[in-house]
């Protein structure tokens, strides 16, 4: 499969863009920075398309074998530990690469318009290219350690981009929060890797799969522990319970960043990681069920918070968490290809919704509060049209993309026996809530009359509208490939688990129910928000505790603050600060300094500062030496003793 194109080109092209814009960006003319920033992901996308050919049987024979590229020099080679720097392209990483570079390129184009007047224009694009570099490394990784490099790298890029407007304290804080919360997840990933090394002696995904396959005795026990550690890593990166708290705050970053990193690509890395390690999870039913529970709980939990958010980006942020929960739910019922399918369609419609929200914010001059919008459909017709597509897609209406993927997940959950039914019910309720809060956003922002007449919104430039239209088309057609064909395509990577008891008839009924609840959600939103309705406020006053609970996001941030952050701060201040730093470290430093000063105070007495006394001592010393050397002491002593004995004799 050797051609002109190599896998390492895919990460390297954005990296070159990062270097050029990162080092020279400020001195380069703007058009040049733009060209570099756009060419890098476009070229990477081109390379992905080129290397994808064998998988589709275009130009060459159809092949389902993974394409492996390994650096000839071992990366780490110490005793029994041997780790290569290797890239693997298979169906799974190919889908991810297409999303990352394709959607990534569209968002780069959009950013040209969105960030046009920003001072850090080149810096912004260098970070964005850096993100693409690490994300492609993560996706292409052939073993867990290479994946970890990309994993940490995207975390870094995310941190840099959330805190892009670092002059704003809230943005800088949000960046730190994201980074720290992700570290907790990374801890799980690291422990998982150590356990993998200890038990399998390798981190290469394919070798682990082979070893697991050879010995059917590998079930439960250590495999469960490894899988749960990896799951902890995934919950950090993919913003699942209990580590989801960083994602809503990450909305402090520029909106295209929210679209690319915090909706379409980076946050899906956890789902990808689980799918990549699916063999491990398949060998541990317990870990799998935990994945499903985490996913379902997160989906429902985040959706309820999303109901009452007033910031347009935060609604979308909670919606992202909720949709990621669906993907985890899919993985948890071993329907990995359904999860990846939802990842794909979600990348389209969520990127679309975020970019449309960015267009609204751009047009409103920075206003993000839904309560101050309204009636925008006349002013922003293109944005309105594409948002409508996005809302219909995420709510799961036929024939939009979200319908197919969400349906596949719910269907797979339903077939998992009695527990699966519970998951299915949770999924359906979430679908209802999703539909409701998305139409709520739609009504509040675009319909009715403007609630801020002093703002005169304007439609965004074509560099922003273009990507919106393309993403809207993808959000419509993205699901038409169908779960059957998509699952078949992915089967060599993630396997197929034959669901029992399924039938086209059942699937049709379930789809009907899903669309039914989506319609119900729309209807409710219509009743609540179509005209100036008193229903929402009446409901809020009728259920004050419930409303407050949701509006304050279940007080999770506060609970974490009291139970984790405060005690940690206290331990840091009292134990680390006073005992260790001031007491032990400071004490040792003072002790050393004290000894030096004391000995100096004693020794300085020797130094009179009187030149002549020094000279006198010198002369005395010289005289003493001379006396010692020149006087024949043995003779003197002998004569003295003679004298002594002579005296004694008499």
């Amino acid at each position, binding site marked *: 499969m050797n051609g002109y194109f190599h896998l390492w080109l895919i990460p390297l092209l954005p990296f070159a863009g990062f270097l050029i814009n990162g080092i020279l960006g400020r001195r380069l003319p703007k058009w040049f920075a733009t060209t570099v920033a756009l060419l890098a992901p476009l070229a990477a996308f081109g390379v992905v398309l080129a290397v994808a050919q064998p998988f589709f049987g275009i130009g060459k024979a159809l092949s389902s074998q993974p394409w492996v590229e390994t650096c000839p020099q071992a990366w780490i080679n110490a005793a029994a530990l041997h780790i290569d720097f290797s890239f693997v392209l298979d169906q799974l990483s190919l889908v991810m690469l297409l999303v990352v570079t394709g959607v990534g390129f569209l968002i780069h184009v959009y950013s040209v318009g969105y960030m046009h007047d920003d001072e850090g224009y080149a810096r912004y694009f260098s970070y964005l290219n850096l993100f693409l570099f690490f994300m492609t490394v993560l996706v292409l990784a052939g073993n867990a350690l290479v994946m970890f490099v990309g994993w940490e790298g995207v975390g870094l890029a995310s941190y840099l981009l959330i805190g892009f407007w670092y002059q704003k304290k809230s943005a800088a804080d949000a960046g730190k929060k994201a980074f720290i919360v992700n570290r907790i997840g990374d801890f799980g990933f690291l422990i998982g890797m150590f356990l993998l090394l200890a038990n399998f002696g390798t981190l290469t995904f394919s070798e682990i799969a082979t070893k697991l396959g050879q010995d059917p005795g590998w079930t439960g026990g250590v495999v469960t522990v490894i899988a749960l550690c990896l799951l902890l890593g995934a919950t950090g990166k993919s913003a699942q319970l209990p580590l989801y708290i960083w994602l809503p705050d990450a909305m402090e970053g520029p909106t295209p960043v929210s679209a690319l990193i915090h909706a379409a690509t980076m946050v899906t890395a956890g789902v990808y990681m689980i799918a990549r390690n699916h063999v491990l999870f398949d060998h541990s039913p317990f870990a799998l069920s935990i994945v499903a529970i985490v996913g379902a709980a997160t989906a429902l939990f985040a959706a309820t918070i999303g109901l009452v958010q007033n910031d347009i980006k935060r609604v979308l942020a909670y919606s992202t968490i909720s949709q990621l929960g669906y993907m985890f739910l899919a993985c948890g019922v071993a329907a990995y290809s359904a999860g990846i399918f939802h990842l794909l369609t979600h990348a389209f419609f969520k990127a679309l919704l975020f970019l449309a929200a960015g267009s609204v914010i751009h047009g409103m001059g920075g206003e993000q509060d839904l309560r101050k919008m309204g009636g925008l459909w006349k002013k922003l017709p293109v944005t309105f049209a594409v948002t409508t597509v996005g809302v219909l897609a995420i709510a799961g209406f036929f024939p939009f993309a979200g319908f197919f993927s969400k349906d596949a997940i719910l269907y797979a959950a339903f077939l998992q026996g009695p527990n699966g039914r519970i998951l299915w019910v949770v999924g359906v309720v979430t679908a209802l809530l999703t539909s409701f809060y998305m139409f709520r956003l739609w009504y509040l922002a675009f319909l009715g009359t403007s609630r801020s007449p002093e703002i005169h919104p304007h439609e965004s430039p074509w560099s922003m509208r273009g990507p919106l239209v393309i993403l809207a088309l993808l959000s419509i057609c993205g699901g038409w490939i169908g779960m059957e064909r998509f699952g078949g395509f992915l089967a060599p990577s993630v396997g197929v688990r034959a669901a029992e008891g399924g039938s086209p008839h059942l699937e049709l009924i379930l789809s009907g129910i899903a669309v039914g609840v989506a319609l119900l959600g729309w209807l409710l939103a219509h009743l609540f928000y179509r005209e100036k309705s008193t229903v929402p406020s009446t409901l809020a006053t009728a259920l004050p505790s419930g409303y407050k609970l949701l509006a304050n996001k279940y007080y999770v941030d506060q609970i974490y603050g009291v139970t984790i952050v405060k005690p940690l701060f206290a331990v840091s201040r009292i134990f680390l600060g006073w005992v260790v730093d001031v007491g032990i470290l400071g004490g040792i430093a003072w002790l050393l300094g004290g000894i030096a000063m004391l000995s100096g105070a004693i020794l*300085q007495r020797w*130094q*009179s*500062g*009187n*030149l*002549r006394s020094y*000279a*006198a001592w010198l*002369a005395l010393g010289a005289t003493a030496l001379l006396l010692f050397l020149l006087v024949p002491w043995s003779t003197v002593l002998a004569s003295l003793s003679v004298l002594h004995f002579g005296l004694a004799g008499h």
Partner: protein
Amino acid sequence: MNSLFSQEVPLSWYLLLSAALFSLGVLGFLIKRNLITVFMSIELMLNGVNLSFVTFAHQWHAVKGQIFVFFVMMVAAAEAAVGLAIIIAIFRARATLAVDRIDLMKL
């Protein structure tokens, strides 16, 4: 007279003169307070040593001693140049040359 002058001056006389010069130097160094006098005393000590070098060189017919004298003179010249420069700098800064009062390094 003739016999007196035809006889060589004994070695010990040279050495005594050398020791006397050196001792004078030491004494001056220890007693005098003026930095320049102290400095001159050092020269005196060096020359006392030089004399004994030359004496022994003559006595043992070894040229090494005389060569050493040149070295000492050269070092003395260099030392005089540096030392005088320091003395001038000190005088400019402190307006005194009394060695007892130049003890800034002491706490």
